[in-house]
């Protein structure tokens, strides 16, 4: 044996030889994991990759030789620290394994998991009668998997071992049903004998086992993969702050820019020091993603709760970006305080952040001054002014009344009353259909510009978040590909709304084998889970096409509803230019290299010797034309007219051509000559 070497990642490697097969494993690897690596199977009963080994059943007993001395160990919890040999089929190993299994057989003679192993390894029931013999086929064999799963996978400690010796059993505290238990089913699924059963009296699913199988898969992914993936359990969606900054997508100063030198002050490592750790913190008890997050004992410095300890629910990524970087605030305390008061007053943090960012830019551009704002110095970075604005909104006083009406109204008021240039206000006012934009810079992704501005409820990214696919991966090079993505993803995501399900378990943890699928962006392993969820609930087998069609029916119905409310035509699917490209000289010049290159390569315009306003105009013309091309392609894909109206044929194909629906679209179709 060559002994211990140091691998490049600094964990020393140890060489082990298992049944003659040599492998190197990082020091501390269990003998069981080393055997798997060597391609040798060691039987187990109480071991599972998602939970810490416990050594309860002793089925994995194996003879090893270390420095010339032989002994028996349980492979599942024996850490390899020095070179060794293991013999999984030696006489000694086989005899001991048989002994363990024959004892189990004596106590639980009818449990299939025990019988199968016993038979395979030649164990016979002993001649004596075990005093604790239990004839049940689903008897508890005290493997402890359920106890560890409750603690390590669900982050609860609701069930535990109680009693000793013959009285040892698994139970809830004092043997009473626990209020904390939500019936997540993790314990039941991991139980190898079926001793734990979950009864869903409320929902009465047709096939609960089918649903639980996929639910357990998600729990297992969260347990094993979340720490290396999105850290949803540690910090929630705020893990995105520094990532968005790295890709120039974190909105700063009313979406002028996508990054800021002060971002590290509000990055995820900062939030980890604020939010409660190691407790399940979901929107509802039992959620395995647990990304809700909370900050305890926070003391606001302003407002009605000044000086008192309060609980802040959050912060989420959108809140950090909207009430932080987008208004130039990089003080985590101020962000938490805005978060707290928005929640307390019932104000959406995205709308507050985006509306305040707009007001701040107007202040800095000279459209507003302290006379108009009632003394508020609404400059980017002034957290105190932002907080005062928020308190004014809640009291219905001062300038807060104007900002509280949202960006669409502010644009009108600032132009009519304060002499602001309506075109400039339109360019920088980040709203569509009256709703404020959520917190991503979409300038470099045409598909996302559509994802935002075409969204039926207004520019919220939950219909489609295509920036990486489009801008970074370059997977959507044509209008048709972008249109296909702007059909599939909004329909897929709409389905979560139809089901009353959260979307995050779909894509905030991804199966280990996700990469093997041709379209990993769709997370096919999880799509399969949702298809099975539907079938398990309703008993109806469906395909992904059926799911998309369910959404299409509702989505088109919503479009007709938009039309009825006066906001369902092409003109309402266009966003402000700030969402599409640089509005100001300052913005252009901050990324001049990128924009000059695009002018040369995409527009065919030589920027040499041109002024920044000339270049801005050339880029704008190109981008606005591109956007119109996108609208045409998406409408075509969705079966809508050039004005964005669902055709009668589309409504008929979807089975929603009810007279009262047709009545709404017909006048619009006639106007276009499409009826």
């Amino acid at each position: 044996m060559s002994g211990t070497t140091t691998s490049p990642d600094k964990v020393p490697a140890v060489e082990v030889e298992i049944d003659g097969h040599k492998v190197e494993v990082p020091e501390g690897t269990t003998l069981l994991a080393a055997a798997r690596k060597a391609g040798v199977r060691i039987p187990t009963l109480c071991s599972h990759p998602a939970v810490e080994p416990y050594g309860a059943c002793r089925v994995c007993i194996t003879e090893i030789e270390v420095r010339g001395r032989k002994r028996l160990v349980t492979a599942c919890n024996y850490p390899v620290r020095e070179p060794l040999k293991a013999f999984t089929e030696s006489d000694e190993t086989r005899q001991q394994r048989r002994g363990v299994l024959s004892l189990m057989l004596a106590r639980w003679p009818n449990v299939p998991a025990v019988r199968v192993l016993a038979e395979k390894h030649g164990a016979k029931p002993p001649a004596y009668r075990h005093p604790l013999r239990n004839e049940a086929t689903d008897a508890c064999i005290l493997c402890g998997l359920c106890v560890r799963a409750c603690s390590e996978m669900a982050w609860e400690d609701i069930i535990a071992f109680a009693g000793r010796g013959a009285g040892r059993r698994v139970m809830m505290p004092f043997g009473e049903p626990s209020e904390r238990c939500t019936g997540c089913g993790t314990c039941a699924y991991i139980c190898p004998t079926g001793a734990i059963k979950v009864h869903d009296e409320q929902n009465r699913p047709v096939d609960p086992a089918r649903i639980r199988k996929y639910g357990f898969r998600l729990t297992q992914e969260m347990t094993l993969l979340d720490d290396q993936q999105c850290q949803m359990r540690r910090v929630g969606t705020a893990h995105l702050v520094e990532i968005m900054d790295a890709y120039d997508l974190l909105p700063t100063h009313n979406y002028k820019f996508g990054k800021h030198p002060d971002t590290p002050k509000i990055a995820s490592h900062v939030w980890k020091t604020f939010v409660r750790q190691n407790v399940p913190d979901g929107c509802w008890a039992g959620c395995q993603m647990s990304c809700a997050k909370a900050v305890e004992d926070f003391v606001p410095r302003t407002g009605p709760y000044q000086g008192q300890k309060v609980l802040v629910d959050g912060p989420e990524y959108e809140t950090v970006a909207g009430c932080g970087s987008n208004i130039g605030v990089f003080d985590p305390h101020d962000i938490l305080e805005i978060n707290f008061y928005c929640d307390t007053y019932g104000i959406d943090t995205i709308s507050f952040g985006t509306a305040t960012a707009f007001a701040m830019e107007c202040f800095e551009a000279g459209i507003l001054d302290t006379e108009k704002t009632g003394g508020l110095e609404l400059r980017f970075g002034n957290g105190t002014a932002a907080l005062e604005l928020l308190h004014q909104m809640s009291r219905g006083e001062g300038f807060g009344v104007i900002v509280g009406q949202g960006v669409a109204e502010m644009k009108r008021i600032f132009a009519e009353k304060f002499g602001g240039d309506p075109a400039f206000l339109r360019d920088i006012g980040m709203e569509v259909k009256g709703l404020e934009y959520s917190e991503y810079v979409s300038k470099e992704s045409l598909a996302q510009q559509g994802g935002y501005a075409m969204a039926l409820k207004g520019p919220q990214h939950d219909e489609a978040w295509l920036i990486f696919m489009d801008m970074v991966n370059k997977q959507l090079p044509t209008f048709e590909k972008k249109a296909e993505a702007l059909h599939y993803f909004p329909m897929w995501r709409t389905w979560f709304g139809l089901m009353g399900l959260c979307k995050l378990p779909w894509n905030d943890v991804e199966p280990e084998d996700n990469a093997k699928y041709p379209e990993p962006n769709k997370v096919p392993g999880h799509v399969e889970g949702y298809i099975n969820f539907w079938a398990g609930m309703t008993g109806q087998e469906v395909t992904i096409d059926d799911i998309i069609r369910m959404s299409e029916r509702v989505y088109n119905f919503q479009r007709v509803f938009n039309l009825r409310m006066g906001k369902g035509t092409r003109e309402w699917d266009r966003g402000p230019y700030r969402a599409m490209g640089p509005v100001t000289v300052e913005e252009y010049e901050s990324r001049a290299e990128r924009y000059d290159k695009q002018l040369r390569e995409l527009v065919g315009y030589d920027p040499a010797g041109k002024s920044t306003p000339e270049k801005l105009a050339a880029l704008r013309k190109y981008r606005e034309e591109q956007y119109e091309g996108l609208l045409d392609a998406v409408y075509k894909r969705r079966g809508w007219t050039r004005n964005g109206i669902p055709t009668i044929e589309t409504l008929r194909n979807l089975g929603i051509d009810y007279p009262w629906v047709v009545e709404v679209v017909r006048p619009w179709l006639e106007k276009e000559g499409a009826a």
Partner: protein
Amino acid sequence: MSPAITVNDEPHPWREGMTVADVLRERNFVFPLLVVSVDGVHVSRDAYGTTPVPPGAVVVVTHLVSGG
């Protein structure tokens, strides 16, 4: 001209001893949910530091999506 590789359809300078981890670092691809392939062959996350990128290679770094 010095040899180059292609990363997500864009040219990127190549150098001796370059690995997948180097490419990700140089392109500032810090997102945790990536699917990487070099000349059509999938590279798993634990092999980023040891998988060489030959001159002229086509590297595809697919960023998945997270967040609401």
